[in-house]
């Protein structure tokens, strides 16, 4: 006998253990039904196709295993001789075709429903950057009302295993997107550099954010809550580190939040005016610059300014940083087009910009004389 049953038995046992152990070992191993009408429809579609596949699998694999058990040489020494049947071929062409049509019908209707954008209550522009998201709340004429960046907030120590990982490791941000429930929110997706993809599984929304193009999707969230997702298109080194967090609030809470944020933004503008006018000391700028650096620069240029040469140049001992302020600011303000060094002019306010400039020129063993003040940044910007 050619077939050592020993091997089959162990193999089957291991396979069975695998199939049973894996789901048991973890919670959450299926698609989420989510919190929108569309996401539930997609979940139902997913389960429908899954069970159809299981059904077909039982028939096909059943026939195969019956054959393996019964039609082996030790039980069936003389093989049958049939080798074709047009009738059968037609049957097993038409039956799968019918099943597929049965799947295509509900799939088409869900798709048509998803493409029904328009009639929205509010519009949010979502802009991908290497490696953060920017959210802009637009008014009816698509003018920007409020905008902010959303960065990963997991501490680097957790990533590097020097601190215990928190519950929402890699799925937490400093400024989450906030939207109201029960209102149709339309998202306009685009990107500043490479292609990213904005994905929140609970909304069943995944769409590419493409530089130079705008994609649009929408959602009506039905339950308040915190929903987490991730960038789903390879976008460079920190692709794994640009999560999405959405807070869905009841309508009145959202309205209150929005009013408060608008007020805050106005106050911040005023405060900024004051801060710009304020007399900054070197120490104050250094401290603020350190935290700006930690949010915006550390991913590439690293904590000690050592960079990851040759991909990301070291700032420690760097000629540009040690050189004159004008050309140093030029790099940070305008970036280097066509490289990963983006323009920080539009991202940082004059105070943050001044402080991070000051920080670079003082940290990493540098000791450039002058203090970089917010007014310097404004003067620089006006000269552009």
């Amino acid at each position, binding site marked *: 006998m050619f077939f050592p049953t020993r091997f089959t038995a162990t193999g089957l046992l291991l396979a069975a253990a695998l199939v049973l152990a894996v789901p048991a070992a973890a919670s959450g191993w299926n698609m989420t039904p989510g919190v929108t009408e569309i996401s539930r429809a997609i979940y139902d579609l997913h389960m429908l196709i899954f069970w159809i596949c299981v059904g077909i699998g039982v028939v096909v694999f059943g026939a195969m295993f019956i054959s393996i058990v019964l039609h*082996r040489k030790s039980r069936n020494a003389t093989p049958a001789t049939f080798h074709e049947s047009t009738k059968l071929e037609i049957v097993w062409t038409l039956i799968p075709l019918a099943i597929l049509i049965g799947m295509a019908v509900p799939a088409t209707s869900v798709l048509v429903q998803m493409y029904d954008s328009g009639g929205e209550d509010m519009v949010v522009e979502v802009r991908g950057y290497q490696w953060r998201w920017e959210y802009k709340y637009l008014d009816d004429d698509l003018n920007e009302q409020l905008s902010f960046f959303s960065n990963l907030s997991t501490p680097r120590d957790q990533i590097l295993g020097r601190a215990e990982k928190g519950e929402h490791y890699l799925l937490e941000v400093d400024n989450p997107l906030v939207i109201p429930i029960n209102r149709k929110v339309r998202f306009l997706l685009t990107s500043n550099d490479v292609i990213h993809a904005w994905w929140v599984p609970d909304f069943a929304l995944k769409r590419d954010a493409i530089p130079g193009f705008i994609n649009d999707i929408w959602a009506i969230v039905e339950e308040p809550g915190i929903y987490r997702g991730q960038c789903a298109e*390879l976008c460079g080194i920190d692709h794994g580190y640009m999560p999405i967090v959405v807070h869905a609030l009841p309508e009145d809470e959202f309205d209150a939040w929005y009013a408060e944020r608008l007020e805050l933004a106005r106050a911040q503008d005023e405060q900024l005016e004051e801060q710009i006018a304020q007399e900054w000391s070197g120490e104050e700028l250094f401290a603020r610059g350190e935290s700006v650096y930690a949010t915006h620069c550390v991913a590439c240029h690293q904590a000690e300014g050592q960079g990851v040469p040759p991909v990301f140049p070291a700032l420690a001992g760097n000629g540009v940083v040690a050189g004159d302020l004008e050309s140093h600011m030029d790099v940070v303000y305008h970036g280097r087009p066509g490289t990963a060094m983006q323009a920080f002019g539009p991202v940082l306010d004059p105070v943050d910009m001044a402080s991070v400039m000051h920080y670079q020129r003082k940290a990493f063993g540098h000791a450039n004389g002058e203090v970089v003040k917010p007014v310097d940044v404004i003067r620089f910007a006006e000269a552009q």
Partner: protein
Amino acid sequence: MSAVIDAHHDDHAHGPAKGITRWLYTTNHKDIGSMYLWFSFLMFLAGGVMALVIRAELFQPGQSFVEPHFFNQMTTMHGLVMVFGAIMPAFVGLANWMLPMMVGAPDMALPRMNNLSFWILPFASALLISTLFMEGGGPDFGWTMYAPLSTTYAPDSVTYVIFAIHLLGASSIMGAINIIATILNMRAPGMTLMKMPMFVWTWLITAYLLIAVMPVLAGAVTMMLFDIHFGTSFFDAAGGGDPVLFQHIFWFFGHPEVYIMILPAFGIVSHVIPAFSRKRLFGYDSMVYATSSIAFLSFIVWAHHMFTVGMPLAGQLFFMYATMLIAVPTGVKVFNWISTMWQGSMTFETPMLFALAFVFLFTIGGFSGVMLSIAPADYQYHDTYFVVAHFHYVLVSGSLFSIFSAVYFWLPKWTGYMYSEALGKVHFWLSFLGVNLAFFPMHFSGLAGMPRRIPDYALQFANFNAWSTVGAFIFGLSQLLFLYVVIQSIRGGQKATAQVWDGAEGLEWTVPSPAPYHTFATPPQVK
């Protein structure tokens, strides 16, 4: 099919040359076939080591083993090496060895080009892999090379990657031309098209696919080259170009490419299952038609890889329906294989075990394929580990298992010795266990929301990833056993008969084992 072998031997026939020149200058299809197979095994190990680096990093959450930048290079290079270095050359190697013997030809139609198309490969692959050691690192933008990450934002070494892809493509096209020329012109008298063995049929169709789409890939990477160095903006929106255009061109190549990697596998399985079921292949004609329809459909489904780029509704629907249709001819093939086994007289030697595992696991990959084809559901699956599970079920337990099956099946014919059946079975069971342990949990991590191509992940995916890593190492290490079994069979053992397997049919079993350096100098007569 019966054949008459002509025992007469040409007087100027000769054996292989001595020393290294045998391999450098050879025009012999068997030598070239062996070189292709050894080369692809080497690349398989190289790509495998990269996969293990990836899996080691992903064993636990946290950045533990490699930096994200190197991680991205590993995923990219793993994909490129496995597709262009391991799977495709392995099938070309099998074609070189078997096609002339299967159609009763003395050699390939264009033996010198055959030598060239092989010898391009080691240089192209060395160039590709050497980019890992260049300043700025190797390609880190995924094997799909989406612009502008692969153009404006790419490391400098991308230029060499493009050149390597051009070379690999040229080699594939030459190989394909040779295969078509051989099959169409050099069949033994009496072997009509509808009498050709299935491996010959599937390779004929595959070769046409190759000729149709490799130039498209060459065009895509050339446009990248122009965007990078010559100031064009094909894929740069700032200059009036379109990044999505790259994806359309890439996948117009890319989808037929996945069938290039599976059609020859269909052929192999259609030889092995009848041989060990001792029963003729069920539905030969429908197998040919199914293969042709799959090849045709493969040209009109490419944008199912791009459901999330924001196509108009009509486009989404067209590509969804066309993709779903592929399941029909694929199903026909599976039903035919099972009907071949039905009421056969089966035995379960290693080639048969791999072929059965192929039918089982490829079908699972087909199921996840049908799920992916449903556009609204694909919004949730796309670019997650669910897709990774899908294409590894079709590529590893599909294409690769069929290659293992083929090697065990024809090894006695090549070496003249039987391999160790016991060790072969151990290799099979370890591979079977490893593949499932590595890739089955990926369905779950993907559905639970884990994106692909990330070096670190949230805590809820930890269990699945730990399992996957264990499975990947079991699978990877057991391939060393495969190497051992093959070497053992080359060095000696139980002598193989000409027939080798009692149920096997075809001209290749009418020549002695090992097959002489020159076979069918005079064509056999096929009735």
